[in-house]
């Protein structure tokens, strides 16, 4: 009976991001949600528990407001949560998140399987899963679209790779990152949400964790995409292709 950890991130719901006057992004009225593929991760963990028994723990690190996301995650069938909440965890980099999650798992949660979403809805860096596996010293299987646990306790995963499907087998413990194709996340019922508040949440303070390393990335700016139509037509002849490339260069789209 596997102990499964599903990791999730509480992200800005992109549907609420508005475009400011100069193309700047306006986050003043945004709402938050569990990152899309992380919902698949939780769903997969809960489905596997339904088949094999065991337990599902959700794990997240983020700003204190992410407590609502913890409740949301618990309403989706997990029985307990570990939550590292701190105002400074709002803009964690992948390496920092992986270090925090790794520390919490190693010191506090017995596990056989860790499931992460392939990438987050906000940055989609696809870094936390592989980095966390490395941090824990266990194998990582990414791009997973189907997951089965065999009777021998080994895991069988279908990976969707560029040229087809790759089937991978691995002994537990292992970390997998999942694609949305793996399942359809449930919509929690009213009672699921109401009982989520009664499930145990282990809160972990920043001070209880080793210091996270300094941030290595710097955000220079974020602007909304702009679509302009110039109504210029190009034919499929060598001369025209060259003219097309020239036009793109002129616009600075390619160099």
């Amino acid at each position, binding site marked *: 009976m596997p102990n499964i950890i599903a990791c999730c991130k509480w992200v800005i719901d992109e549907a609420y991001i508005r475009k400011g006057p100069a193309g700047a992004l306006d986050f003043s009225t945004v709402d938050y949600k569990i990152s899309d593929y992380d919902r698949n991760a939780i769903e997969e963990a809960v489905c596997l528990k339904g088949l094999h028994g065991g337990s599902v723990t959700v794990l997240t690190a983020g700003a204190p407001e992410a407590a*609502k996301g913890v*409740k*949301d995650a618990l*309403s989706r069938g997990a029985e307990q949560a570990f939550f590292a909440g701190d105002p400074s965890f709002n803009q964690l980099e992948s390496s920092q998140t992986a270090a925090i999650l790794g520390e919490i798992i190693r010191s506090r949660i017995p596990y056989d399987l860790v499931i992460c979403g392939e990438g987050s809805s906000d940055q989609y860096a696809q870094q936390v899963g592989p980095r966390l596996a490395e941090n824990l010293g266990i194998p990582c299987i990414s791009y997973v679209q189907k997951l089965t646990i065999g009777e021998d306790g080994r895991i069988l995963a279908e990976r969707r790779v560029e040229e087809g499907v790759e089937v991978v087998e691995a002994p537990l413990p292992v970390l997998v990152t999942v694609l949305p194709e793996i399942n359809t996340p449930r*919509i929690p*019922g*009213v*009672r699921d*949400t*109401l009982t989520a508040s009664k499930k145990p949440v282990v809160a972990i303070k920043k001070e209880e964790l080793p210091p996270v390393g300094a941030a290595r990335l710097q955000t220079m700016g974020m602007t909304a995409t702009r679509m302009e139509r110039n109504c210029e037509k190009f034919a499929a002849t060598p001369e025209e292709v060259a003219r097309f490339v020239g036009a793109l260069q002129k616009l600075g789209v390619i160099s």
Partner: protein
Amino acid sequence: MEFKLTEEQELIRKNMREFADKYVEPIAGEIDENSRHPAEVFKRLAEGDWMGIPIPVEYGGAGADYLIHILAVEELSRSCASTGFTVSIHVGIACMLVLLNGTEEQKQQYLLPMAKGDKLGAFVLTEPGAGTDVMAATTTAVLDGDAYVLNGTKTFTSNGPTGDTYMVFAWTDKAAGRKGMSCFIIPKGTAGMSAGTHFQKMGLRSSQTSEMVFKDCRVPKANLLGKEGAGLVMAMAGFDHGRVGIAAQSLGILQAALDESIRYAKERVQFGNPIARNQAISWMIADMATELSAARFLTYHASWLKDQQRVFSKEAAMAKLYASEAAMRHTIKAVQIHGGYGYCKGAKVERLMRDAKITEIYEGTSEAQRMVISGNVLR
């Protein structure tokens, strides 16, 4: 004073939004066109505990606030006003009537399967000659041994053809006036009770409405709800709950009209610019957004009073009156913003405008709400 929902309320609202987007929005046009009761949607609603939100868990419900039920009706109605209404009248009137007035046996036998969503409730009061004037009803219930025998014809019964558990009102003692009407729980299949065919309506078309005919219909004494003669008082209390639901339904319609209007006004280009740049259009949208907010505060307040176990008749009437009239006013504007496209089948605003009209009529017309409100403030 706090103007915010709890985390649970927000999450549940979002879940219903997702549910409606996924299962209701895609079929809303079709079930309107074909006047079809979407049984498949109600099965899913039952699975998610949406059919008995404010009913205690021991009676099959979710044991949540009335406000959560209201939020669910609003979000559901944003996609389909008929589906939202069916949930509203089932929970707000049928289930609440049994919860507030039923015996333990009646709650186990009738409320539990309704609150679980296995059975659909209906409210059977209106008659061909008795709308707002409930006292003009003629259906009678005469005690004969261990049963009441009902005779008469009811009309405009929502969930008439599709219901399972009917709350039926009839005179047990016409001479006693307001203290002479009683309410009976009558399950589908009872001999002597039959539903007529579904009325073809202007809007709210997937909600099934029909006549209900009672011909020597024998109802065991055990199915009398509350005391003999208490029917009218119970019906009025039922209306208080139901009206907050109709207000929520109106909010959903109005929110959808606003969403559609904003999207279209930004997208539709005339004279070289999106029509949203025209003050004539943008002011319509400003009024729509403002009245939606006002209606929402009235509705949530009425529901909050209910959850605080305070008197909320007047506030329920105000919420229903204002929200329904705002929905009607602004769905007309939404069609106007869409121009010819809004007048064609397939445009959501066309359905919204037809659906909005009924909110000013049923569970007490706007005029009836004004009677309730003025009666309260002039006391």
